[in-house]
């Protein structure tokens, strides 16, 4: 597939938009953010960065015969002060831009343009087309194809390592409301020839399941298989049990065969990974909702890797008061991890995480405060902790337009001291007749 032709699709679709827009329901989301940040990296002079970023999203539905819609989202940035990340003073990205036609039955739709694909084990972004539909007798079908959307080029390479074309899909079967099984796969083509890395295509097949024999029990998950390395890449399964209406008990198991799973993650030298190495995690948790005002959650996870193992446990509590206009939360977690996961030559990677926040949102003003602190068991670069406090204040100028400003200060091992501020303008306009703001 010639990528320049495929990449013209989103542009052509956008050019066709005005004629069909006369009877459309349109919503626009725009967020303008100017950040002010002073960084003091360890051993380097302070720099002042002032990036100005514009996020813009447009959704137009009921185009054409009423079943066609257009969805566009992206951002652009200009660095007013020092360069914020790399040597580019300007940057931007079209996150997605596609036309979608929804048929009146069978949840069928066709998409064309730039969009994300989430089907079973497939998570990709392409410039191309997709189709999906329910079929009789509980079956379903989806397919996609197009050119990969590329990301930043690898260091000293002329490519990000991703191939040109990407094709795949999923078939599934549902039995009443108790079972869904699916089979999905993707096939990447024309992986680039790199100077410092091997040529690898991302090709996976896999299966997924959702099984709920009773409304109080859910089992779900997936297994993927790398057809290039010819080995299982991932198992990831979750079980939810709801013994009471607002109580959810959770158990999860994740396993990654490292070479098979990370094979196309080229900047981490996937071919050097030991084929026999695997990482696993086993977790459990419980959450309970006391009406609409309090949420409690506790969790535990055990990690196992070839180099060692670790445990993480903790709890969160959230409050929603005064008709949801006041929301707050507290959290504590502890990671117990040995020197094999530590930074540098530290004898331990263990740390405590403390988090607290509160916000108040009224029809006129809104305010929020957020504090997070990581307390290391052993000092990292001679710092005992990494903490940051953020204060945000804003005003709803109209129901669709809000202005706000954030200020944050923190100290941490990486930058010693970080002072950040931003001003933000949100504009969310919807010319439609029903539904939420999404």
């Amino acid at each position, binding site marked *: 597939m010639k990528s320049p032709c495929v990449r013209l699709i989103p542009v052509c679709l956008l050019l066709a938009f005005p004629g069909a827009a006369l009877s459309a329901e349109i919503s626009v989301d725009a967020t303008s953010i100017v950040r002010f940040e002073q960084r003091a990296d360890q051993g380097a002079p302070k720099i002042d960065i002032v990036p100005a970023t514009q996020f813009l999203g447009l959704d137009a539905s009921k185009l054409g015969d009423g079943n066609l819609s257009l*969805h566009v989202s992206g951002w652009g940035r200009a660095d007013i002060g020092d360069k914020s990340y*790399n040597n580019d003073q300007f940057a931007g990205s079209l996150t*997605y831009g596609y036309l979608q036609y929804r048929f009146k039955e069978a949840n069928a739709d066709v998409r064309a343009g730039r*969009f994300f694909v*989430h089907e079973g084990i497939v998570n990709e972004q392409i410039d191309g087309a997709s189709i999906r539909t329910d079929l009789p007798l509980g079956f379903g079908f989806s397919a996609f194809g197009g050119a990969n959307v590329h990301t930043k080029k690898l*260091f000293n390479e002329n490519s990000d390592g991703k191939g040109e074309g990407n094709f795949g899909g999923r078939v599934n079967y549902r039995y009443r409301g108790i079972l869904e099984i699916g089979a999905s796969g993707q096939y990447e083509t024309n992986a680039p020839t790199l100077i410092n890395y091997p040529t690898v295509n991302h090709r996976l097949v896999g299966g997924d399941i959702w099984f709920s024999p009773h409304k109080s029990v859910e089992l779900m998950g997936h297994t993927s298989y790398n057809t290039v390395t010819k080995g299982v890449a991932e198992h990831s399964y979750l079980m939810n049990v709801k013994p009471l209406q607002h109580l959810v008990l959770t158990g999860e198991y*994740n396993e990654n065969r490292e070479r098979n799973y990370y094979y*196309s993650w080229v900047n981490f030298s996937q071919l050097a990974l030991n084929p026999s190495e695997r990482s696993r995690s086993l977790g459990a948790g419980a959450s309970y909702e006391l009406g609409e005002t309090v949420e409690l959650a506790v969790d535990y996870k055990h990690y196992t890797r070839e180099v060692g193992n670790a445990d993480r446990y903790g709890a969160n509590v959230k409050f929603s008061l005064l008709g949801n206009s006041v929301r707050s939360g507290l959290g504590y977690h502890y990671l117990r991890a040995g020197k094999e996961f530590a930074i540098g030559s530290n004898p331990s990677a263990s740390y405590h995480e403390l988090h607290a926040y509160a916000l108040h949102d009224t029809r006129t003003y809104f305010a929020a405060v957020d504090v997070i602190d990581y307390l290391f068991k052993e000092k990292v670069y001679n710092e005992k902790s990494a903490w940051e406090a953020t204060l945000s204040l804003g005003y709803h100028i109209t129901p669709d337009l809000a202005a706000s400003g954030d200020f944050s200060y923190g100290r941490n091992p990486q930058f010693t001291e970080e002072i950040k501020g931003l001003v933000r303008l949100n504009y969310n306009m919807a010319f439609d007749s029903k539904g939420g703001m999404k």
Partner: protein
Amino acid sequence: MRLFQRIFPALALAGLITILAACAQMKALPNLPASHPETLTIGQQVSCAECHEDQQKGTLKTFDAFSHSPAFVKNHRFYASSDERLCSTCHKSSFCNDCHTNQVEMKPSIKYGNRPDRDMPHRGNFMTLHKIEGKLDPASCYRCHGRANNERCITCHR
């Protein structure tokens, strides 16, 4: 081979009839609405069962399975991989792409600094933390930074 050539027209005809019969039944298959008919409260954990209790129809999963409990929010990837159409009745794609995208401009926790109630990843000084978390659970990095969103990674990882 000759036998196959003889029965191929019959097989093709049977296949065509099956496809036509399936297409005829497609109109009987229900559609999810394009968008949720009621406005939902921003910042409130949605309980689908509040209005949709025992409304399971046909092959639809029970609505209660999608109630946004803390467990659901934490493990939403399992639901999104097979029920994106249901998610899209309430969420625009951009809601997902605040975190899961090809090129992220700023940490979601900075973009939404005025919304600390949203469980945005990489809060605070994650630059230090990632040196521990990356070794502990690289799969959690790979899901978002493996095949996309690598600008920050390749600055140091070469």
